[in-house]
């Protein structure tokens, strides 16, 4: 990795000096934001409180769902209003809506003797972009969940929607916070909600374990994020974006002048620390292991938190602090390689799984890898675009899977379901799934997923030194198309067949390992577990409505991606108007310039312009993937359980088995980290009991022991004492005499 040379090359790509200085000044001089922006996080918070009250008053209706939907919709409206305000303020403007002081204290009057991390919201176009799809999708998914969770009306329903609302609030804090500490609040807040919602079926040990794993693995990343924030504060004297970006100037200047080696080491370390935090939250190597397990949660949660929004927080963090990342020689290359390897690894695992929700989870990990690569290859627009399109189609894919799971008693095994799309009442689900799969597979031209993926691939091949990443991503694109359509061809088309899952309700809370009878659970009574009587129940209006809207949105996402005003496409202008811009602009400008024969420091794809070449190549690769899936999993398949692919499996030998076992990563972690730590902890406990405390007990025991050993000398005989006394006096006298003479 020729980090330094890459960095120097980037320096050449930097926008003209006045532009950067202007941007910095712009960022520093923020204007007061609209008060309505504060409603975006506060309304979900209100919803959280109301749902909590519903739980307290034991509301047994769908009230919490409607509260949540209404509040989230209002929050979405507030975001739209804020976006319009921002547009009025002009491109690239930054507004700050202060709410109240949080961690705020001083120890002197001089500059720098002041710590300030307030509840204040930083509103720029990146914030608005993120908040738009977060609140928009959250509203839709809440609507979906109102039906999906209906079997749990009561306590569980309240609990679900309370945590759901709290999640949106936390996410809003994460995205809108005007400082890194408030981002950290949101960061851990979404982690908490993720924990609570993964553990929603709390009686299932696997769900509890998954929830715990998610929280702890995230915490590892959080620690690095926290350290990054501290370093940021120590170096820049502030945790507020405005201040930090204003003070990045000198280092940016050095970068532009090519004096890369003069950028302080501290500055280079900050992004490296922030990056690990992003890896944790966005499930990248080596911290991705929690995300597949997180599928233990209810499907709406998987759709919203573990596909569309929370997991993109890492991408947001890097985009938000992009200027810092540009200053490090190593940060972005590492991000790129981690992203590429994660994308490939997750795709290979996804190919070999049978649980459709898990396949989607691995595809999420894989797509997040794409986004990181996008950032690493200076295509923050591409990354953001992929976050945007992925949010819609992946949420839709999850919700479709969820509808299947809901309808077939928790059945998720693609060997036990077939032809679902053609069953009565499942048309909308089938269409939604098809649209989602097309997007994920990157079906050329008509899908938004194709265009956003294309931007990243194009940027990768256009950036010098990053072609290898481009090739990995291209390979992954093929694999993605294959495993996506493997699910589609197996489950949704083909001969009609189903076996219901082992749960009467997909999410009923009796996942106890032991069968203690369900008589105690009143709501479970009346459902006969006999498969013969089982009728899949087709999704109702709410699920169909949401899936329909999302299916349209997944296509409609092309519009903001490809069209816009004077500043280029809308989405690009949103990204460029924010801190994610500095090099993003330069890169795309340079990319355009490259098309005009400038050619400076620009890589090409076998002599063709990378972006244009990718439009064709990635389309072809996606098509091939789909074709293979068709041949292996659809053509000539007569049963649900088997397809032609099974006969090919032996050819891959242990590789296939290993992929099915997720490359044994969980086992390796368990063996290398968890088990040794457990042993060490037990040793510590023993040390504490027998050494540290033993020493104390020894100190208590020693005088008693000495006393016990001297005890025989007290024989109780008068003469013994008398002789002792006389002898003692004699000795004393002797000593006195010896000393005196």
């Amino acid at each position, binding site marked *: 990795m020729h980090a330094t040379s890459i960095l120097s090359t980037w320096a050449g790509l930097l926008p003209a000096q006045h532009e950067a200085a202007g941007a910095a000044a712009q960022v520093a001089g923020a204007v007061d934001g609209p008060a309505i922006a504060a409603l975006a996080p506060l309304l979900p918070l209100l919803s959280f409180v109301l749902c909590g009250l519903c739980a307290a008053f034991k509301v047994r209706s769908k009230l919490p769902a409607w509260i949540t939907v209404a509040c989230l919709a209002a929050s979405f409206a507030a975001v739209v209003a804020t976006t319009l305000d921002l547009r009025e303020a002009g491109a690239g403007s930054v507004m700050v809506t202060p709410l109240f002081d949080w*961690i705020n204290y001083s120890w002197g009057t001089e500059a720098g003797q002041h710590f300030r991390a307030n509840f204040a919201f930083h509103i720029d176009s990146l914030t608005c972009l993120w908040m738009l799809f977060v609140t928009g999708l959250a509203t839709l998914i809440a609507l979906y969940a109102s039906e999906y969770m209906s079997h749990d009306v009561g*306590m569980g329903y309240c609990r679900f929607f309370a945590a759901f609302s709290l999640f949106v609030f936390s996410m809003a804090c994460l995205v809108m916070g005007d400082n890194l*500490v408030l981002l950290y609040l949101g960061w851990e807040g979404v982690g908490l909600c993720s924990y609570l919602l993964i553990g929603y079926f709390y009686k299932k*040990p696997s769900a509890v374990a998954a929830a715990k794993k998610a929280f702890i693995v995230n915490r590892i990343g959080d620690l690095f994020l926290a350290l990054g924030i501290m370093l940021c504060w120590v170096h820049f004297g502030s945790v507020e974006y405005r201040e930090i970006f204003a003070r990045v100037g000198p280092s940016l200047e050095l970068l532009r002048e090519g004096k890369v080696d003069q950028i302080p080491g501290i500055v280079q370390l900050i992004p490296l620390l922030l990056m690990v935090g992003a890896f944790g939250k966005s499930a990248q190597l080596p911290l991705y292991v929690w995300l597949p397990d997180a599928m233990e949660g209810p499907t709406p949660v998987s759709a919203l938190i573990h596909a569309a929004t929370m997991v993109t927080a890492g991408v947001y963090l890097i985009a938000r602090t992009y200027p810092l990342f540009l200053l490090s020689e190593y940060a972005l290359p590492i991000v790129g390689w981690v992203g590429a390897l994660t994308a490939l690894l997750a795709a290979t695992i996804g190919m070999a799984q049978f649980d459709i929700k898990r396949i989607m989870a691995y595809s999420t990990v894989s797509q997040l890898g794409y986004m990181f690569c996008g950032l690493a290859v200076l295509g923050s627009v591409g990354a953001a675009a992929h976050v945007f399109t992925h949010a819609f189609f992946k949420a839709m894919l999850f919700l479709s899977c969820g509808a299947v799971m809901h309808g077939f008693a928790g059945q998720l095994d693609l060997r036990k379901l077939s032809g679902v799309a053609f069953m009565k009442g499942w048309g909308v689900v089938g269409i939604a799934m098809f649209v989602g799969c097309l997007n994920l597979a990157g079906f050329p031209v008509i899908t938004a997923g194709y265009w956003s993926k294309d931007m990243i691939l194009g940027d990768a091949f256009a950036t010098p030194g990053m072609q290898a990443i481009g090739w990995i991503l291209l390979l992954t694109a093929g694999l993605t198309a294959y495993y996506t359509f493997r699910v589609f061809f197996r489950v949704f088309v083909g001969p009609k067949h189903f076996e219901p899952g082992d749960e009467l309700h997909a999410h009923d809370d009796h996942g106890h390992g032991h069968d203690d009878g369900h008589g105690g659970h009143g709501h479970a009574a009346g459902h006969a577990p006999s498969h013969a009587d089982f009728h899949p129940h087709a999704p109702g209006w709410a699920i169909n409505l949401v899936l329909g809207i999302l299916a349209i949105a997944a296509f409609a996402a092309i519009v903001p991606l490809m069209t816009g005003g004077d500043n280029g496409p809308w989405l690009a202008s949103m990204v460029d108007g924010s801190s994610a811009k500095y090099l993003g602009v330069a890169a795309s400008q340079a990319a355009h310039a490259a098309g005009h024969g400038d050619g400076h420091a620009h890589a090409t794809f076998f002599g063709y312009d990378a972006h244009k070449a990718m439009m064709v190549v990635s389309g072809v690769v996606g098509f091939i993937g789909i074709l293979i899936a068709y041949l292996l999993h659809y053509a000539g398949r007569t049963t649900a359980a088997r397809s032609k692919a099974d006969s090919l499996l032996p050819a891959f030998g242990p590789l296939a088995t290993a992929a099915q076992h997720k490359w044994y990563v969980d086992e390796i972690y368990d063996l290398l980290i968890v088990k040794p730590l457990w042993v060490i902890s037990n040793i510590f406990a023993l040390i504490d009991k027998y050494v540290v405390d033993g020493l104390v007990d020894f100190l208590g025991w020693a005088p008693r022991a000495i006393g016990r050993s001297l005890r025989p000398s007290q024989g109780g005989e008068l003469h013994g004492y008398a002789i002792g006394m006389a002898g003692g006096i004699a000795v004393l006298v002797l000593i006195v005499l010896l000393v005196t003479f």
Partner: protein
Amino acid sequence: MILFSLILIPLLFAALLALAPAAQARSLAFLGMLTSSAAAVLAMLRFDWNNGAVFANEKTFPWLGELGIQLSVGADSVSMLMIALTALLGPICVVASRTAVTERHRTFFGWLLVLQAAMYGVFIARDLILFYICFEFTLVPMFVLINVFGSTNRKHASVKFFLYTFTGSVIALAGLVYVAKFNAELPVSATRESLAAMMQAGGTPAPGPGVWTFDIETLGRAARRMSSTEQAWVLLALMVGFAVKVPLFPVHTWLPLAHTEAPTAGSVILAGVLLKLGTYGIFRFAIPFVPAAFAEYAPLIAQLCIVGILYGGLICWVQTDVKKLVAYSSVAHLGFCVLGLAATNATGLSGSILYMINHGLSTGALFLCIGMVYERYHTRSMKELGGLAAKMPVWSTFMIFFTMASVGLPGLNGFVSEFMCLLAAFQASSAWGSSTTMVEGAMDAGLWGSAGASTVGATHGGLGPWYAAIAGIGMIVAAMYLLLMVGRVVWGPLVEPHGHGGHGGHGGHGGHGGHGHDAHGAAAGDHHDDHADAHGPLPADLTAREIGVLAPLAILCVVLGVYPKPLLATLEGPVNQTVQLIDSARSMGLQLEAPAHTTSPAQGGAPTQGLAQ
């Protein structure tokens, strides 16, 4: 006078309680706690929060004048905050013990009141001897509470608790008395006659040759004039005493034992307030008395803290006793608290004081939660308890809430202080270099760690990023063990101890005859419904009283997590004053080898002469 009443009211009620009939003990104790808390609130209302560093409501009564010992009280904002914590937890403990304490009400509540008085005394004392008396006297009620009302191993635990902490405190006393002696031998300009006149008039005896005083302010000024060797020894003595109380690794082993065996109210007070006496002592005495030595040895103290954080945390992870787990978590948490102090900068001191309060709230509440389960199931073993969310949703909500507060989730109280303590350790390094402006730093900067790296937010100190990074691992470990606890006890399949089972259709589990105290025999008929576990007078889930106990703590956790600003603002005064002491001591250098005063052999008898007069 209002501060004196904080000591007097609980004592008065304790005396009343001793005379009153046992049936009235609980209500009388509650009244006493409420009255003293009301007095505390009154004191808080009269306190000028904008001038946190000023000791308000000061009052001095002559006591043992010839020894220079006075009944002298006063409170700055640090004291006031600790008083507020004490005033909050006191009544809560009485209410929480309503069903837990079934016999010897007068003993229990009487000693609880005495304990309350002693704790107030520690925080308001402006005289060293008064401080020490109160500091030590907290041991006696706690000893009784553990010894009489604890669980199976209570005798051993109480004796160990008493002797261990007492030994430490005596060493601290030696250090404090040395400072007093040093002060008495300092030359002053006042003549002997004027001193005598002052003393006859009942005034404060000014310090001087042979004239003893235990006024904390005066002693602090005197102590800072000690030679660095003396300072180091005094620091050692003080730290031994306070570290045992905190407790820091490796003198922590009394804590898990005492916590496990203590009754719920005892655990709450122990975790909530008594442990803070140690950190308060460090803040009030160790740092202002010997700032130079403290700054010098801060890295060592911080290292002990970090060991405690990781070691205590990992031990938590393998506990099966819930209460022991939370007890060990205190070792880890207080490690963060002292780490903040060891950072010796404003962030750290503020964070540490906040930590004292936050830990009192969240861990106190966790002990309350565990106590509520213990009352119902008579076990604290994670092997016998599980999945209680199914039975006790309200309790589970509180449990998860306080666990999250304890984990340090942002938005709740624990985060603010934990983050500040870590940040303080992070920035407190001399390795950060001295350039103050970004540009200057950027220009002469070399690689990471080289001198001259630009640092706007850095402060002096002997710690640094590695301290924060390694201590930060404690955040992960905290999540590991606390979520393990939640995962076992709150979530998962329902597990109840033998004799408590019987959800759903399992009949024939023999009812509750096995529990002697269950006076519900007559109502045995309804024991086979869903509330079969309703134990004694307690229903399956929390009662309104128990919710009332936990709710104020929960609300405070949120408020302090979201809006710690008023606290931070009022702490700026005392904290910045203390930081100035440390910084000036640091800038003067630690080379004060020559003693600041000369004691000729002829003056050796000076103290006794002073006493003779």
